[in-house]
């Protein structure tokens, strides 16, 4: 019998000025109906590229499918005509893209973009509209009948990701390729989405190809696992087996790097001076209050994490602090100066001190600048950081620190994987040697081993240079390991804040407790157990 989807010996190259990149090499795996296959792997190991190959989305040239077959129900899609493949796309095989912001068309309403898939296949406008509303509701978009007419830029990162998911589910496809579908989602929403996928899978028997680095997600939903490294499949097996008995060194490294088990950080002494004091910060878009009376402080050398529901105003808060959005009310004192009312000139002077890693890394990198230009721009803007002769070596060093290599310097952003771009963004922020870094889901697209590397780097820098972090994340184990203090947000408000210990060990608010409870454990067996408990509860 044929598998639902199978790749045989798939190899993909990219021809670039700097040489040929072998992004995917001889990859074999298969997916059956009703099954969830997780592709785990290092960031940049070819996961997204192989998915793109299935969807006929690789630009050839510069890309080239050097060898292999991709069999859908036994038929090699690579041999099909473009028209035949178009018929499959969206209908039989659907894909959720890794980077929702750039993959949504900025000038059309999300409603249109979701219903379009259906309308393109003859579903009537009204029906498509109806189904779009349902889908939006199912992926947890509140007030879908209003949001249906909003544009992508009016959504939060997590919301956009859910819209992507809704779009992919428009047709109950046979195969769903989900490329990091939950990176921007907080655990409660993540749970909801995973449940949605599971339910659909049960209803329709679709096969899910889940690309993720989140071992918790793997533990929750995956039946089998494929582990990729450097473009190759290094290990395959049942999810539990791979977790318990990883055979390949990379897999072993991965599993040992799982966060959430380390020491809790001790709160900083009370005497630490505050680097930032935020007071009653408010922000509204029209009538919608995205941020209401947010007040908190960050000490020198402190890491403050913000967790909370998707769409709760975390990114908005970050953008307000950096003056990328006008605030409605409130103050934010940076070392005594109110960031929000500073004149442009003075603002420019402290810009360097406060840096941000954006939630959507692709969009935050100028597509016309090489990686070297992007990172060294810091030195151009602030010539006192480094003499020109050392830029090259410093950029190389930064790239190494975030797990990339000096070779990447001459490449351009579009030639990287999602996680690689995120790391470039981090390197760029670090290049400025700021005092405070706002990380908006800065490590969400990284596999745990690289994640660990980056987190270690951040901690090191904090210890050496006294950098403070405002760390927006939904990955609770990571927050637990990294943060001194935690702020919990919901619906534009700060609902709870305290030290890691207070929040993780003694959460006060029920929302926080739910959040912690929804957190996934990387061990498939543990998750299995929890699932059963949940079932019992509902029964």
């Amino acid at each position: 019998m044929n598998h639902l989807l199978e790749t045989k010996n798939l190899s993909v190259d990219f021809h670039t000025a700097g040489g040929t990149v072998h992004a995917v090499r001889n990859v074999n795996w298969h997916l059956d109906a009703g099954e969830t296959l997780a592709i785990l792997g290092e960031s940049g190991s070819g996961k997204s590229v192989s998915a793109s190959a299935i969807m006929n989305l690789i630009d050839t040239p510069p890309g080239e499918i050097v060898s292999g077959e991709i069999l859908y129900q036994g038929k090699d899609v690579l041999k099909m005509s473009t028209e035949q493949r178009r018929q499959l796309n969206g209908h039989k095989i659907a894909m959720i893209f890794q980077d929702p912001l750039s993959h949504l068309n900025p000038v059309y309403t999300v409603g249109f973009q979701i219903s379009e898939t259906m309308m393109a296949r003859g579903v009537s406008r009204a029906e498509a509209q109806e189904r779009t509303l349902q889908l939006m509701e199912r992926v947890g978009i509140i007030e879908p009948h209003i949001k249906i007419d909003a544009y992508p830029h009016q959504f939060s990162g997590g919301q956009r990701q859910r819209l992507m998911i809704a779009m992919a589910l428009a047709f109950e496809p046979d195969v769903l390729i989900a490329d990091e579908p939950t990176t921007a989602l907080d655990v409660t929403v993540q749970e909801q989405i995973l449940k949605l996928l599971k339910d659909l899978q049960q209803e329709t028997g679709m096969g899910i190809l889940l690309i993720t680095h989140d071992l918790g997600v793997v533990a929750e939903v995956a039946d089998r696992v494929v582990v990729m490294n450097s473009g190759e499949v290094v290990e395959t097996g049942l999810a539990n087996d791979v977790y318990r008995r990883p055979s390949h060194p990379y897999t072993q490294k991965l599993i040992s790097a799982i966060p959430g088990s380390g020491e809790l950080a001790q709160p900083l002494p009370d005497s630490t001076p505050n680097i930032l004091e935020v007071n009653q910060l408010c922000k509204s878009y029209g009538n919608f209050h995205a941020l209401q009376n947010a007040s908190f402080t960050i000490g020198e050398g402190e890491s403050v994490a913000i967790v909370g529901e998707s769409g709760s105003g975390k990114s908005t808060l970050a953008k307000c602090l950096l003056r990328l959005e006008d605030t409605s009310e409130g103050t934010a004192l940076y070392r005594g100066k109110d960031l929000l009312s500073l004149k442009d000139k003075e603002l420019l002077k402290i810009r360097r001190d406060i840096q941000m890693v954006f939630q959507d890394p692709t969009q935050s990198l100028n597509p016309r600048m090489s990686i070297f230009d992007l990172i060294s721009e810091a030195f151009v803007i602030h010539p006192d950081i480094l003499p020109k002769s050392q830029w090259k070596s410093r950029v190389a060093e930064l790239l190494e620190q975030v797990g990339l290599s000096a070779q990447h310097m001459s490449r351009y952003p579009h030639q990287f994987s999602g996680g690689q771009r995120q790391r470039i963004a981090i390197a760029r922020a670090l290049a400025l040697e700021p005092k405070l870094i706002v990380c908006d889901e800065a490590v969400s697209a990284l596999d745990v081993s690289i994640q660990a590397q980056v987190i270690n780097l951040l901690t090191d820098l904090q210890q050496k240079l006294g950098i403070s972090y405002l760390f927006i994340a939904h990955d609770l184990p990571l927050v637990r390991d990294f943060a001194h203090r935690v702020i919990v947000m919901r619906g534009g408000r700060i609902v709870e804040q305290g030290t890691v210990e207070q929040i993780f060990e003694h959460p006060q608010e029920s929302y926080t407790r739910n959040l912690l409870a929804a957190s996934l454990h990387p061990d498939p067996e543990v998750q299995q157990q929890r699932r059963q408990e949940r079932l019992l509860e509902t029964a």
Partner: protein
Amino acid sequence: MKHVFLKRALGSALSLLGLVVLVFFLSRLTGDPTALYLPIDASMESREQFRELHGLNDPILMQFGHYATDLLQGDFGESIRRSAPALDVVLEAFSWTLQLAAITMVLVISAAIIVGSLAAFHVGGLFDRIATFFSLVGASAPDFWIAIVAIVVFSVGLGWVPTSGTGSILHWILPIAVLFIRPFGLIVQVVRGSMISALGSAYVKTAKAKGIKNRSIIFVHALRNAMLPVITVAGDQAAALLNGAVVIETIFGFPGVGKLMIDSIMQRDFTVVLAAIMVTALAIFIMNLLIDIVYAILDPRIRY
């Protein structure tokens, strides 16, 4: 929004005023219409009489005063050449121009968008090469060439359409066809360039993944993102047409505002020049306002 609109209207009114003042004084620097109006061997007295009659002997500020007061009462003055109200003369010509410009631009924009987009879809392909070649030749060929060759071929040679004039629909075909060529060539190139970038975007991949037809990918997903420069350049071309397609009007005997404007300038018929400028300026201001509104419609991220 209303506030923005008001401000815009006010700004436009001010610039119109500035334009009038500017043109009034500058145009008078270009000399006295007397010599042009009267026969070469007219006597000094009749020259003097003429100046007196048309108030050309008054100090220029006074002339402006008169003009401004009349204008405020809606009187645009008399055309010296035509001895008819300047505004009537202009409006008559302008209505022709407006029709011609509107029809031409609608055709140009639709055709250029289709051709440019398809060319961008297969960069370097056969269609792209052909489209690029012809649009570039069209955009840079002297228009009177095309006009005269068209007359020689289609009117004299084949007898399909009349050479020139205005009577029937047939009369419009050649002028529009000739007017079409240059803006078409230009806009095809702009569409092509801007579509190449748009088609390389990630959201186009999404559309492909959704199984959307190529037609929709090009004309729905990419095009709208590529439209800003297209609309702007089209606006510029439309403005040029509104200012009059002199060559075409001259050759095809089309009674538009371009020829009127040239003649009036050359003959120093200042009232007509001013009236013509005010009318076309108003049209262009309105068009630019519409274009700005279209920007905001095309791209929801643009807010004024």
